[in-house]
């Protein structure tokens, strides 16, 4: 059974989330502060951590930092609207996604499923194939085609695409992408990233104006949101 750890200092939010997740067949564990959260992650080995950013004593940022020191459990950060800088810091520190309070249970469950899928996919290791309309992306064969015609991707575009696919469903911050694809010291060149993402979208999105694969999270980063087709190449 999938186990989810809910960390929030507000008792009624813990209770509401626990009830909703429980009703959908997840096993729920809760923690009311940072210390307790670290404890539960260590002893309960949850599959996903839902973590509130704004907590007294030890905030969500610090909890993320400490969890990442020894665990790669997916972390979904909860924040309110005016905590953008904290949210981005949390993602840079290794959180996988975020949700802004208040949110619907449906959205929370979708994000949780996406995070769980990512760990499953990583476990499978088979190079995925994506198909969107007339566009087909075969990561294993290193090939992209549009209406049967091969599309050429530059080295950087490939690196970018691979970063996205490898972290499918995870929200990647501008800084992380820049440092991962371009290297250290490029972390602030958000414009460069924007140009390359736009080029990549023209090549791989069926409708580059309405991207389906590379989703923009305004002010934060991008997320790969297409699921691979079942057949592997």
């Amino acid at each position, binding site marked *: 059974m999938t186990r989810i750890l809910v960390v929030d200092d507000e008792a009624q939010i813990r209770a509401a989330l626990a009830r909703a997740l429980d009703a959908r067949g997840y096993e729920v564990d809760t923690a009311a502060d940072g210390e307790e959260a670290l404890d539960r992650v260590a002893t309960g080995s949850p599959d996903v951590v839902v973590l509130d950013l704004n907590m007294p004593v030890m905030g969500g940022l610090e909890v993320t930092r400490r969890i990442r020191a020894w665990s790669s459990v997916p972390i979904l950060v909860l924040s*309110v*609207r005016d905590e953008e800088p904290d949210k981005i810091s949390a993602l840079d520190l290794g959180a996988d996604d975020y949700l802004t309070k208040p949110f619907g249970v449906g959205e929370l469950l979708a994000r949780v499923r996406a995070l769980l899928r990512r760990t499953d996919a990583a476990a499978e290791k088979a190079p995925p194939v994506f198909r969107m309309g007339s566009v087909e992306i075969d990561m294993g064969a290193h090939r992209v085609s549009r209406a049967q015609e091969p599309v050429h991707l530059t080295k950087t575009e490939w690196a970018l695409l691979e970063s996205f696919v490898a972290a499918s469903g995870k929200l990647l911050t501008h800084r992380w992408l820049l440092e991962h694809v371009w290297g250290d010291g490029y972390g602030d060149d958000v414009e460069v990233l924007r140009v390359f993402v736009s080029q990549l979208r023209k090549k791989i999105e069926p409708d580059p104006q309405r991207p389906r694969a590379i989703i923009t999270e305004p002010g934060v980063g991008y997320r790969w949101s297409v699921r691979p087709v079942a057949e592997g190449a």
Partner: protein
Amino acid sequence: MRRGPGGDGSRARGRAYPQVMGMTRVVDLLREPARPKRRTAGYVIALVGPALLVLVFLPFREDLQPLTIGFAFLIVVVAAAAVGQLGPGILASIVGFIVFNFFFLPPYDSFVIARAEHVVALFVFLGLSVLISALLARAVERADAAEAREAEIRTLQELSRDLVVQGPGEETYRSLLENLVESFGFEAGALLLQEEGIGLVEKLSVGAPAGSLSPSWNPADPGRPPERLPLSVGNRNLGLIVLAGPRAPLSASESRVLRAVSDQLALVLERDRLLRTATDAEIFRQTDRVRRNMLAAVSHDLRSPLAAIKASVTDLMDPEVERNDTQRDEVLRTIDAETDRLDALVANLLDMSRIEAGVLEARPESVDLLELVTAEVDSACTRWPGIRIASQIDGDHAIVEADPVFVARVLSNLLDNAAKAALRTGHPDIEVRVGRHGDGVAVRLIDHGDGLDPLAREQLFYPFYRLEERTSKLGPGLGLAIARGFVDMMGGELWVEDTPGGGATFAFSLPAAVRS
């Protein structure tokens, strides 16, 4: 000077009195010194001195050298010049010249001079006398001038000491004005300041009824026009000092001192104005900070119940989840409780803004606390199911003069805070005590929670000041601030004590109802 019956004023004068005494002496020096008297004395010496010398030396004029007698006349010249300066010195020279020639240069008792060397001696005497008179006169004049300057500076120092030593404020200006009026022999004085958009406004006056001293002067008025000292710094005209009274026109040195004093006062006024501006800016900055903290805290406190409600509602809306009645009931109860919490918060915020805007007004009436407290305790018990509240009410001292709506809000806010503290620490017992307190009635809410940290104590008085940005939550601040605002409006007091054995006791007092 004995003006005005005011207790304050006499205290101020009492402090200023010794200085004024010292100053009166100093200012006397400023009034044209005793020069005319000394001049007359000089002339007397110039006339009487030679006559005395004639009387003394006449019997021996045959035995003495004319030169010796000439030296004696020189002494008279020096004395006359030293006492009466140039005029008497010259007079003594001329008189000496004539008398010396007439009585002591042979042939005697005539202006004829027999020997050429005596002619030389006589004119050397005249030249020397005039030279000495001139030199002495200049020296004395310089000494006088230096003394006068020193007197001016001392007067100025005395007058401006208050400005420098005392803090900014009307008291300082008043004591300066009193000193000016008194030490310069005026009768009344007023300080008029330039107010933006209005013009000159009288700030304070001494020795005359407020507003009676006009800066403009009616030429038909038999008295002298009042002295007007403009106060200005750079191009800014700050106002005017008006001094009136039956006294001689100001001497040059008095005007100089008064001008210097008014310049200093102008600088001090400008300093005080800038100080006020700086203080206002600081207050604004802090208010702004408090507002930002409060906004963050309010948005957090509003979103938390909203988040729980939204999660619960979307949970219920999902048709795919199987749920029994108990589970459905639980979700609904969460929504209900969170809606109440939101409502209470919104009510508190509205109250707070009404208190701050000053639009709320207490409508005191006779209120029986026995009834009111019991009702509030009952409703708190339903709001906080895990809490046990015991009340102990002295029925003889439970009728107060208060606004029942306000009292209810104060009680529910304090009960909520106590309940939260109790739940947080797992000591679910709360006590409410009502009893006599001085002339009034006090209500005490006693919890056995974790007590008050110093921060919370401070928050009681400055509810949002210390809110940290990272954990921006209102905490008990808002409810306490409102309770305090309400109690204040009803003429009571709100305070906090430590509960013996741990926990906090919040108490407030209300005036007892007047028995009709």
